[in-house]
């Protein structure tokens, strides 16, 4: 058997150095083929060096460890290194992979080395193990998405030019939006600004549970509505928190306030 080779991927240099130092003591024959600082580098270096063992940090900038594992998992033994991912710990306990929870001690790493050496000496992993791995990766990816600042289905911030800067306004602070030819006027707690989007585009991008169009040219934040006044001819007007102006509700949108 040729010398086993390994890849270490972690964005924190001190942790890469420590793992390298510990492995040198516990598994002197193991050659560290490369060190990667993020998931993208890990995949590139894996393709270049084709190591049998990969130590992957789960949380890395750009491409994370889970995504990197998806593209290399079937071709190497992957050990995840992670800090306090309770869910990950659970997932790995049911899966076929090994994992290390940071900070780990030398004895724990010795177990992992033992397991890896046995696996490398034995027959190639069965297909069932690979299927189990896929499930573990799916679960982990879903969990990571849930925990991280993952893009929501709807717009959470409105970018508006105020003077020379582009302000980011949290949508929950927006009181209402009104069409102004090709632009839209955003009115929020801290002021008002024109943005380069049409009311129609905004109606599609904003969360419909909070923002409703009440008129051809007006969208209001329902949480900011204080009162709806009925008028003649199936029209109404809306009064908003802390604002003097009343906004028109046209006939075709009046049904929104029927139950109120």
């Amino acid at each position, binding site marked *: 058997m040729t010398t086993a080779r390994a890849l270490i991927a972690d964005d924190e240099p*001190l942790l890469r150095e420590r793992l390298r130092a510990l492995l040198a003591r516990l598994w002197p024959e193991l050659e560290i083929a490369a060190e990667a600082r993020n998931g993208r580098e890990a995949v590139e270096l894996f393709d270049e060096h084709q190591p049998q063992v990969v130590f992957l940090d789960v949380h890395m900038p750009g491409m994370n460890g889970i995504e990197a594992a998806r593209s290399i998992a079937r071709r190497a033994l992957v050990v995840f290194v992670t800090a306090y991912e309770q869910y990950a710990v659970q997932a790995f306990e049911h899966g076929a992979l090994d994992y290390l929870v940071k900070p780990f001690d030398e004895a724990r790493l010795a177990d992992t080395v033992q397991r890896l050496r046995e696996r490398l000496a034995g027959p190639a992993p069965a297909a069932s193990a690979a299927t189990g791995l896929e499930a573990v990766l799916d679960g982990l990816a879903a969990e990571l998405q849930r925990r991280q600042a993952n893009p929501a289905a709807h717009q959470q911030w409105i970018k508006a030019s105020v003077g020379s800067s582009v302000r*980011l306004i949290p949508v929950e602070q927006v009181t209402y939006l009104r069409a102004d030819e090709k632009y839209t006027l955003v009115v929020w707690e801290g002021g008002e600004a024109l943005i380069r989007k049409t009311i129609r585009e905004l109606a599609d991008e904003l969360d419909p549970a909070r923002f409703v169009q009440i008129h051809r040219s007006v969208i209001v934040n329902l949480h900011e509505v204080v009162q709806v006044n009925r008028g003649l001819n199936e029209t109404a007007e809306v009064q908003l928190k802390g604002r003097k102006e009343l906004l028109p509700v046209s006939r075709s949108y009046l049904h929104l306030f029927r139950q109120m």
Partner: protein
Amino acid sequence: MPPVAVSVPTRARGLDRFVAALSLKRVLIALALATLTAAALNPLFITPFAVLLGRLLVIALVLLLVFTAAGSWPVPWLPRWLVQVLAVGLMTPVVSYLVYLPAVQGQVFEVLRHEGRLSGFIWITGTTLLLGLVLALGALYRERDAQARNQALTFELERSQLERQALDARLRLLHAQIEPHFLFNTLANVQALVESGSPQASAVLRSLIAYLRAAMPRLADDGATLANEIALVRAYLELMLMRMPDRLRFEIDVPDELAARPFPAMALLTLVENAIRHGIDPSEQGGTVRVEARQEADGALRLSVADSGVGLREAAVPGTGLANLRERLAGFYGPAATLELAEQAPHGLVATLRCPAEVRA
């Protein structure tokens, strides 16, 4: 800017108000009082009681409608209560006179010629005028009283909501202070330094201790100053620098004369943590975090945390940190404190905190 507001016809709203003000209770009171008046006046009249009662019931109901209507359609230049009282006063003789018309087959002057009817008319008008005006004033007084109570309740509710929000913000601060991810990753780095016998280890431990001490749950903001907060921010950034030396650079620029300013604990740290978590950490290249404090002309404190990281996408879910921070600022400084986020060129984000010179009592 053309106003969006359109004026809605007042007629429809007046009708709404009219229906709302005409409560069953008011109708019943008017009818009961009319019955009592009829009973009291009965000995003076030769007219059968039923007729007298009928007349008075009709008068009471019509006057109630007049009173309610006068209150529902505003008259320019005159206060509502005056319009209502005047309407009742003026309409009383008219209505009393009208209820006599059926008895004289519509002969308008017949009522005045018949001495008995004339005295009946005068009695009814006098009594109704007296009772009607007393009743109208009473109703107005009760209305005003209810409005005042309503307003007091609304104020009380708003105040208790604000207090609860401030308390909630503090409780959340107590709960989610030190992120386990951050702590365990940092400890893993410290472990690496200690094991390798690095001389850096003790300096890093000092930063960790300073950070943990500052981040320990505290209920009161008593004695929290900008200097304490900057020490906390510096300790945090030193720890992050140890973890990502190749990706992070930071600068802290705070004039000494601002150090003693009172400042809510963890407020600036929240912004710096956000800059690392959402700006620098997701970036393969990393970037610079710059913390700056300045005093404005009006004595207000302006703090900014700028990063040259990946910036923010419009669909990025805002963390609870910013919402908590806004509540904390409102609790510490009142509504004058503001927090603004803006994009940095060519990429990154700058958060600007403006705190008034006066701390809320």
